């Protein structure tokens, strides 16, 4: 088997899977039952929120408990502008995203000089500030009851209130966020960010401005959270303080751990598994949270690297076996360099 032939065959497989996947994802509205389209829609916007945390925690070592706060802030801004002020599309949307990124800059500047547990606690406090404002500034946020009545826009004849149209837009935006975040991870900036995670002191000694790199990562991570918030509020029609409560924050953190910290694909799978788990388990018992808790406990005990950790170890085993087989067949050839 020549090297050229192998790459070509792999490429065929890649392109085939990609096309099949694209067809399936795009055609969901045509054949998936209505409630499952609803669930997939929720999976997509919660995945964007989870990716935001997964990127920060995995690449920058910043376990941020502010991400749901940013998500909720974005949802609130959109809801307040479109429901209370009747602002026309696209202003509420743009202001929500830009405003959230601006808030992330402020929060980032405050949080950037702390690491580890201190960063965790500080971001917890920042997230709780957003929650407390949502809960108590009743004249603007309507307090405990939240704001109802946000709807997706209708542009000309095209109604994004239609579940299929909404889903397609969300899918495009989701894929864009996914691949852009991947590009950031694989860029020199991503490498520098991982450097600050491993050793901020050494990175500083090498001439990098560590707080600036971390701040940039924090602001980049705010973008998918902000966009997810706008989709969330336009899909559910409501936003309440529960949306950005500590419970929701911890839920997202658990999902990221479930999927495997740092892997964007794993994070999406984590959200998918958690959501489907809920949909399936609640058919049989109302003790969904108990079942989820036990599953999580088992996972942490037996697969601490999450679902992606399991996937990786299986793949490594296959790669080793393939390599061993190749070694048996053709002793002089050195081991394949591509395998991990």
């Amino acid at each position, binding site marked *: 088997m020549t090297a050229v032939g192998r790459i070509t065959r792999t490429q065929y497989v890649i392109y085939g899977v990609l096309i099949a996947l694209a067809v399936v994802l795009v055609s969901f509205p045509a054949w998936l039952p209505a409630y499952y389209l609803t669930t997939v829609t929720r999976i997509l916007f919660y995945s964007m929120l989870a990716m935001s945390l997964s990127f920060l925690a995995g690449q920058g070592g910043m376990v941020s408990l502010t991400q749901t706060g940013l998500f909720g802030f974005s949802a609130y801004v959109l809801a307040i502008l479109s429901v209370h002020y009747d602002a026309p599309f696209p202003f509420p949307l743009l202001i929500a995203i830009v405003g959230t990124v601006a808030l992330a800059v402020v929060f980032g500047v405050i949080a950037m000089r702390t690491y580890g547990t201190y960063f965790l606690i500080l971001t917890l406090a920042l997230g709780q500030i957003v929650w407390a404002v949502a809960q108590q500034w009743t004249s603007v946020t309507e307090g405990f009851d939240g704001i109802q009545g946000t709807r997706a826009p209708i542009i000309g004849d095209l109604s994004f209130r239609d579940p299929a149209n909404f889903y397609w837009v969300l899918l495009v935006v989701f894929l864009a966020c996914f691949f852009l975040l991947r590009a950031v991870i694989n860029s020199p900036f991503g490498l520098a960010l991982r450097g600050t995670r491993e050793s901020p002191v050494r990175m500083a000694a090498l001439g990098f401005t560590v707080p600036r790199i971390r701040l940039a990562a924090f602001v980049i991570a705010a973008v998918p959270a902000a966009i997810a918030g706008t989709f969330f509020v336009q899909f559910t029609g409501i936003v309440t303080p529960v949306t950005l409560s500590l419970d929701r924050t911890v839920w997202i953190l658990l999902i990221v751990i479930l999927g495997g910290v740092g892997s964007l694909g794993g994070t999406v*799978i984590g959200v*998918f598994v958690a959501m489907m788990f809920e949909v*399936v388990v609640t058919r049989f018992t109302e003790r969904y949270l108990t079942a989820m808790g036990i599953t999580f406990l088992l996972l942490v005990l037996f697969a601490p690297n999450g679902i992606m950790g399991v996937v990786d170890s299986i793949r490594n085993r296959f790669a080793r076996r393939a390599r061993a087989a190749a070694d048996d067949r053709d002793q002089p050839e050195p081991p394949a360099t591509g395998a991990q």
Partner: protein
Amino acid sequence: MRAKKPLGILSLALICLVLFGVPAAAQTAESDTLRIGLLAPTTGPFAAFGRMQTEGAILALEEHGYTVSGHPIEFIIEDTRLDGEIAVDKSRKLNEEDNVHVIIGPTSGGVGLSVLDWARDSGVPVIMSYAAPEDITMRLAAHNVVRNSWTGAQPMDPFGYWVATELGYSRIYMIGEDYSYPYNQAGGFKRGFCRGGGEVVTTVWHPMPTEDFSSFLARIPRTGYDAVLYNGAGSNAVAFVNQYIEFGMLDVHPLLGQSNTFEQGDLPAMLLEAAGGLSAIQYVESLETPEFLRFKEAYQERWGRVPAAAAEHTYTAIVMTLRAVEAIDDFNDRDALIEALRSTDYPDAPRGGFYLDEYANPVHNVYIREVREVDGALMNVGIVRVPEVSQFGPYDPDVYMAQPVDARDYPPDLCAEMPAEMLDVEEVYEFVPMEDGR
């Protein structure tokens, strides 16, 4: 290897989706089965309410043998976890997957408003059985949403009027939980109280939840007020009432409550000195009408405890639904079902007869109740019955709805600042002393 990672992941996701999704999609809806969905918080801090709601509904269904007009009934319970977003998702599930004909509704105000917002677009008939924001059946009313419970102001308007006219109080000091239901309760109380000749209702709000009320209790003036009204419920109410007693405040001012301060389920946690506390709502456990006694005994036999308002409200919501279905030819005709629900007249309801007004909110008795010590335990005893109380009280609906929504700082504390059209109306209430529990 790294480039292939997302593909592997996404295909894995796809396989899972097919595995999970296809069996569920294969389920089809039977066209001759009536399907009813219940949204209740069966887990979390309001789980006790969720349990009572579930029990009331199941009792009603069992009494009808899970059939109506020869059709079987399927009953599906979904947990809202007291979260508006979850409630909307569960509503979608009930509609899109279970194809329910009616959804019986959520517990708290915010969740109720969320479901209303969803229901307006989806058109599914919803019976709000415990969510009390008045705008659900007023300024935000949707044709397919009816309510069989109450609005925050509904029991408090006659209560305020009664406190002013019958007890002769003119100055009240109110401490309340800082969210919309207590605002609405305060609004109803202030309107009734001011019409009855009251002068001032000083209002103080405390954050949710509060465990230690000593700073609030210390601020209550010793003179210049006729009574203190605690405008809160649940664990806050237990803490407030007990601390009020322990601080010796009962010797200074008598204590009144909002509609849910002295809930039957919370009374065992209160000190016996709480006896004497007054409150008003459309339900009282001491009622001795044949309808209520029959309901109470059936409920006790089935579930081993005294039914609370939450249980009665889902019980009557189920009965309303079944009667509406019996009255029309085909329950798959959604418009006919909605019209039948909106024209509900339920003279033999356990709480006392009720019918829905043109905004689909019940007109029913309000009971003014006193906490009494009976055989060493506290319980609510009805002392006055106010028949046919509407959500608008004595007001014309258009005049009422032209007012701002009740909020933290509206209506004003001083009766002199109350808008004239809120004071100058013909009184409609009749206060009937309750004898022999009726």
